[in-house]
């Protein structure tokens, strides 16, 4: 098998290190994520899901253990290296969409291109428009986020996460804020991108119905992985 995108070995995270209230949130996590995977990360509140996602997303630094991104140790790298890796390798989808309100839907999607290339070329704009088309928002390219519904905003966020064709998209409760029907649609969209473009997804979710539709379920409890198994993804609407 080729080099995994993510390789975690004995990853630990302690907060408030060296103080009286020091606490370890992740106790030695071993986890690989391969290209094209569609994995869910589940677990009760406080189990360390978000902390783990921040580690994987290079938004936070582990206190111990190893993190290799596409074969390169990166856990303890400096901020600029990790920032570059985020830009080039990872995409993010958050629960509360987090679009930039001052930018239109299309501008939000082309922002990563602007960051990487310093300009938004006509080709980049076309690519952004195609992505928005693919998430069903071809008609609202120039609308501001405040003029879009929650589901639409989350679709824009997904298009933006995919803008630079990342190897892995990290999604933190991407449907946590949406009604069931919209949540199903958004989830289907992620699944679709995974199948068609081969983008790997790691999705944190509370929703057992959505977890059932992933190829792999990783369950975290009290900072330890208690279950990590492949499954046959349920077909939407079958339950």
């Amino acid at each position, binding site marked *: 098998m080729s080099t995994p995108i993510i390789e975690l070995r004995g990853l630990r995270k302690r907060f408030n290190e060296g103080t009286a209230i020091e606490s370890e949130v992740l106790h030695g996590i071993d986890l690989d994520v391969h290209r094209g995977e569609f994995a869910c990360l589940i677990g009760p509140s406080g189990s360390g899901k978000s902390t783990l996602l921040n580690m994987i997303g290079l938004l936070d630094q582990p206190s111990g253990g190893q993190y290799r991104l596409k074969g390169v140790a990166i856990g303890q790298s400096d901020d600029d290296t990790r920032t570059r890796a985020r830009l080039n390798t990872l995409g993010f989808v958050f629960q509360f969409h987090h679009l930039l309100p001052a930018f239109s839907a299309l501008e939000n999607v082309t922002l990563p291109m602007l*960051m990487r290339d310093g300009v938004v070329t006509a080709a980049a704009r076309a690519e952004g428009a195609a992505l928005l088309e693919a998430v069903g928002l071809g008609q609202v390219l120039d609308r501001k986020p405040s003029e879009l519904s929650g589901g639409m905003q989350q679709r824009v966020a997904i298009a933006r996460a995919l803008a630079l064709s990342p190897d892995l998209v990290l999604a933190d409760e991407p449907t946590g804020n949406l009604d069931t029907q919209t949540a199903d649609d958004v989830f289907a969209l992620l699944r679709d991108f995974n199948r068609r473009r081969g983008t790997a997804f790691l999705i944190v979710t509370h929703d057992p119905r959505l977890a059932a539709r992933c190829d792999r379920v990783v369950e975290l409890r009290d900072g330890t992985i208690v279950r990590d198994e492949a499954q046959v993804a349920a077909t939407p609407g079958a339950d």
Partner: protein
Amino acid sequence: MRFEWIVALRFLREGGLQTMLIITGTALGISFIVFITAILTNLQRDIVERTLGVQPHITIRPQDEVARPQWRAAGEPGAQPEVQARAQRLRSIDQWQPIARALDADPQVRAVSPIVSGPATVTRGDAARVVTLVGIVPDRYTSVTQLGARIVAGSLTLAPGDTVIGRELAQDLGARVGDMVRIATPVSSGDAYRVRGIYDLGAKAFNRSYAYVALPVGQALHALPGGVSSIDLKVDNLWTAEAVALRLQREVPHQVESWMQANAQLMIGLANQTLMTRLIRITIGLVVAIGIASVLIVAVVQKTREIGILRAMGASRGRVLRVFLLQGALIGFVGAALGSIGGYWLTRMMAGLLRSADGTRLITAHLDLPLYGATLLGAAVVGLLAAVAPARRAARLDPATAIRL
């Protein structure tokens, strides 16, 4: 930098009222700075010109003559001579023509006017007045002093038999344009001259002090044939007179004196005025900087989530830093641009209101481009510096925490 520009501009636009208020505040502060700078420059130039009257920026005169006693060697018998200061006779500048020619070519000297000046009495009927009689070359003299613009009757034409006197002297003598007056000096019994023009320098003392004749006439009356008692100079910038004088002092073997040396008390007054206005300007600048800094600190707090998302998407700390530095600089620059317009407008308005004793405008509003250029640049730098603390704060935000807010 494209990314930083786009995001900074959008953030400012998104700020709406907040951005408008801080730009307005900056513009008000800057317009006041521009205004008092323009007023001060104008007023000081006006005060200097009025106080100086016909004093030039720089005067070159012969060195004072000193008595040189012959000292005896120590122990030698005999009394030490007591040395009296020597009386200064009216002398010509040695070799003044080559010096004047060299000064004509000097890039820092705008105009050169050789004059011969000394005591004289002007009489008409029973009235006699003591004046300084100045022999001038009218063209040259008017480009060094403002006499040309101060003629209130007749004209400044000086044929051999003509003279131009001040308004108060004319009143004292009961003379009008066309009348004859008698001018005599200690070394010449004098002759009758026709009053061709009357001037008013705006100060009565000056108007009583000077009578003008053509240079050759003056040379004859002061018994200095072919000679001049001083060379008057005008420099491009009033305030550089002292520096130019110091340089010229090294180049000519005569006494060189700037108006600043000759009017030390005036200079002290002006320097204090300049200091006070500088203090006001610095204070306004600080207030503007604090305003910009506080608005940006609030903006950083308001945009914490957006900063977090930008960082997560792959914007480096440096980029976030520059986005906020740029916002500060932009506020300063736009505020200064509006402030310059406001300041110019204020100056024009005041120029219309302030009149001097003779009814002429005390100040003139002119587009002082270097002043406005320096203001724009300075304000952008002040804005940039004011943004340093907020920008560092934004750059240090922990993206993981920022997103959760």
